[in-house]
């Protein structure tokens, strides 16, 4: 399962960021979510959502072997093993790994899919495609 992005449909509402944090931390805080929205205003005037593409670069660079792949295709962080060193952050080509001062581990999308359920413009959609890297198999 992956997330399909139709970037021109993003309206910048950040409902995805809100539900992401509520789902994973049971509190309101868009800065703890595992995706991001870029807003370019006043010119040219557009929004761009960025989500995990399951490329696996984070797993490769993690010195603690704290990131591993689940059957769903998601790269999951072992919160016990992760020491929040942040090496994975610059390795992520789309910039969707985050740290937050409240937590001693990095935040990476686990593909719970809540963000795709709440949006109504179709900017983020469930994508019934095999996990990236598994297509050839």
């Amino acid at each position, binding site marked *: 399962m992956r997330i399909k992005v139709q970037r*021109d449909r993003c*309206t*910048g*509402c*950040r*409902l995805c960021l*809100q*539900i992401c*944090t*509520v*789902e994973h*931390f*049971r*509190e*309101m*805080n*868009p*800065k*703890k979510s595992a995706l991001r929205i870029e*807003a370019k*205003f*006043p*010119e*040219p*005037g*557009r*929004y761009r959502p960025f989500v995990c593409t399951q490329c696996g670069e984070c797993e490769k660079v993690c010195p603690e072997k704290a990131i591993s792949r689940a059957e769903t295709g998601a790269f999951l962080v072992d919160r016990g093993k992760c020491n929040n060193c942040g090496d994975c952050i610059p390795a992520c080509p789309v910039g969707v790994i985050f740290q*937050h*001062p*409240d937590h001693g581990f990095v935040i990476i999308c686990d593909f719970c899919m*809540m963000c795709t*359920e*709440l*949006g*109504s*413009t179709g900017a983020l959609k469930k994508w019934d495609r095999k996990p990236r890297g598994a297509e050839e198999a």
Partner: protein
Amino acid sequence: MATSSSSSGTNSASRNGLAGTTLRIDLSTGAIRRMPTDQDLYRRWHGGRGITSKILYDEVPRDADPLGPQNLLIMNAGIMTGCLIPAGAKVEFGGISPLTNGVGDSNMGGHLGPALKHAGYDMVIFEGIAPKPVFLYIDNDTVELRDASAYWGVGSLDSEKRFKHELGEDFEIATIGPAGEHGVAFSCITHDFGRQAGRTGQGAVMGSKKLKAIAVRGNRSIRVHDVDALKQQVVGIVKRTQTHPNMEPWQKYGTAFFIKWSNDNGVMPTYNFQTTHFEHVDGIDGDKLVEKCLITHKACFGCWMNCGKYTRAVVPGKAPVHLEGPEYETGSLCGSNLGMRDIHDVAYVNWMLDNAGMDSMSGGGVLAFAMECFQRGLITEAELEGHTLKWGSVDDAEHFIDMMVHRRGIGDWFAGGTRRAAERIGRGSEKFAMQVKGQEMSGYDGRWAPGMLLSYMTADIGAHHNRSWTITVDMAEGRERVEGRAKIVVYLQHIRPLFDTWCICRLFWGELDITPEEIVESLNHITGWGIDLREALRTSEMIWNLNRCHYLERNRGNGRSFDYPPARSWEDKIPSGPGQGKGLSLEQIEQMLDEYYDARGWDRKGNPSRALLEDLGLGEVADNLARLGLLGEPLPGGIPETRGEKYKPKAF
């Protein structure tokens, strides 16, 4: 400059939707005080408009100049803001209005309100006047007043761009423009390149304090009473409404589409409300906006309806501009009301007012009034510095806006709004100064929609539509009859401002069949208060009456004397279009006022009675009115048990 910093910004113990801290900033001294947010105050007044009204009543002296140091500017991010509520994005600004000389409040969506709470603050209260231009910088615990001299004189939109560039794209910024700096009475506060707290001149209050901007960033969590129940409820509502028939049109066109409907139904303000039908409406309707100008749809924080239309306007001979809108109100008031025939022209006027920092509703109203004065020869080319001021001319509008912003010549009179301008011009112009209590009318003519006219007449902030909007009720109940309209207006004046009290958007309620009971349920999940809609409506009624009393105390007169619309409303019948020949008589207007005061439990002079105020827990306010001789007489049959009546079938 002044800095305040501490390690514990938020009260992590509170699980009631509040961030925990209130800031009080004396701009005269630069002192920044942090206080725990007063939970009892929120419980009684619910936040937003309620709290700003209460603080203004308690703290601002009755003779204080709205643009002087004793007035306050209160920024309040509401209890539901940023708490997953659909469209729970609002931030409320309140202060005594330079336009109405009563309590002023106005809110805006975007992302600033949630950002303020995520930085750890529920409310910021500004007092005094800074010795030189400053902006408020908030980055979690860091709260500073910083020098804004380099931004003074820069347009609202231009300053936001520069602030974002300088501070970082992740800051949420509110700015004022040159109009606010120069005390133009209908100045607005701008955010997110096109969201405005437009009405009641809060931008002028901000400018009088030499506060150019507010910049906020934060990464704190807000905790609520029952997060699981809230999540389940909100997810249910969002999924249910995704297939609602209104959703797709709403997302696609926003509010601008109703221009044609307004025109077809004879309520379209045209040539300064001279008529209610614009022959060139096809050129300025919402479909033209989407077809010719749209760049992207734009939503406020957490909203899945994205009514915002971010656009580009191109007018020959001028540089292309980016703006949000025009939505319905601006589209009508700066469109047909100014005789603009092309959507690009309407959008360009919208942009000029936005960047100057003027409310584009009052701005459209003031420009239209000036154009009619010019049409009638009451102002001349000599007074306009050699320019004309003709219907439909963007160039003329541009020059006149510049005269108002810089308060040159007669531009200074109009910078005070239509009421003050009419006082200066005289010669019968008061008749078509389309305002009530100093605030310019919204984009609907009330002559063939009596409930709408009554809504304008009685709204606490003057002729604004958001307190009560009844045009579909008027259509259903008879557009030439006034009987029975008052109770519905009273009900709407209680339920609609609740949204401004909770700092959430009103539109998803009316347009997507989300019930008020559902919203109160969300409020309970957030706060744990366990209240019902009846109690919420009583709170709203308490706020309404407090503002009424405050207005009487400041303006020292019987309420009725302030509640009349301009004489065009009853002297002139609608001259053209579907409403041709329609209009109300002064007797009908008097009858509506009588019915309205009866429905509210006020006496026929329009003053609240002691029995009513005590019933609402406002006994001290009754004492204050009594001292001024403005307390209402006891009502012969006592006060009505419930004030206001929900319209059935359901109205919006």
